[in-house]
């Protein structure tokens, strides 16, 4: 992936990721805590369920996470390689790829069985 493309992906996914991750955390806490439901001002149990357990929300967050972190790792790896630290760059690159594939694998298997 070209650095320019990776940078654009990181930039454009950052705000949606911020929004979705925040909603996911807040709804997750609201699902299991009365205090969190009150503190959130906007969550009740049904709404927390809808947001936290809905497939659309989950898959959107996952897509944003995969795009953002893969592009970010590519950027970091590219930077390391450009500075002459090729081995470390390659390690970051391949480790991130393997880890994200692992996440994707688990998700695909789980979603197919739901």
């Amino acid at each position, binding site marked *: 992936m070209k650095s320019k493309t990776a940078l654009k992906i990181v930039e454009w996914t950052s705000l949606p990721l911020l929004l979705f991750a925040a909603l996911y955390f807040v709804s997750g806490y609201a699902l299991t805590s009365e205090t*969190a439901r009150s503190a959130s001002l906007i969550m009740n149990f049904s709404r927390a369920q809808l947001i936290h357990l809905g497939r659309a929300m989950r898959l959107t967050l996952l897509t944003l996470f995969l795009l953002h972190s893969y592009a970010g790792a590519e950027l970091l790896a590219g930077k390391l390689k450009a500075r002459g630290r090729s081995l470390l760059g390659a390690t970051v690159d391949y480790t991130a790829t393997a880890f994200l594939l692992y996440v994707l694998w688990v998700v695909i298997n789980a979603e197919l069985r739901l």
Partner: protein
Amino acid sequence: MKKLAFALLVLLLLALGTYWGWSGGKGSSEKSTATPEENTNEKTTGGPVITITGLVERPYNITLSELREMPSRKVHAVLYCVDAPNRPLSNGTWTGVPLKYLLQRAGVKENAVKVALYASDGYTTDLRVKDVLADEDIIVAYEFNGEPIEPRLVVPGRWGYKWIKGLTKVELVDYDFKGRWESVGYPDDAYIENEANPWR
């Protein structure tokens, strides 16, 4: 190109690992994964199934066959699970004995406030005594759509975490007992606000 080969290798390893995990799991846990419904025959002939205990005048044990002899009630109710509220898990007619009847048979002491319910797998949940005594539709079901099942609580209009299955013990207590999910913050009353559309 090198990275694509690496990605394919990772996927291949994951697929192999998953396949081995599944085949290994199937062999070793075949016995333990039998559903409670599948163990029904064993329970129909076995000893005590449910213990009614705690703050009652006359604690007693009851077998499934004894349960079947008691005054029963048919309740049409839909079971909704919290993690999949958009589709009913079970929808049909449950036959069983009102929990109210079981408690009254034991004689509820005045200071009892909660009913603690225990399952054979360690799961717990709870109900308020006054709710149980006021609602005859809360039953300990032994049949679903005419098919025998292991004793399970049916609590119409409430989320599935109240519908404890494999019920083994009903204990009346004088404190605010909370079951497995209630104790981590799920609403204790568990009412489905809009049963026609639990998502909303």
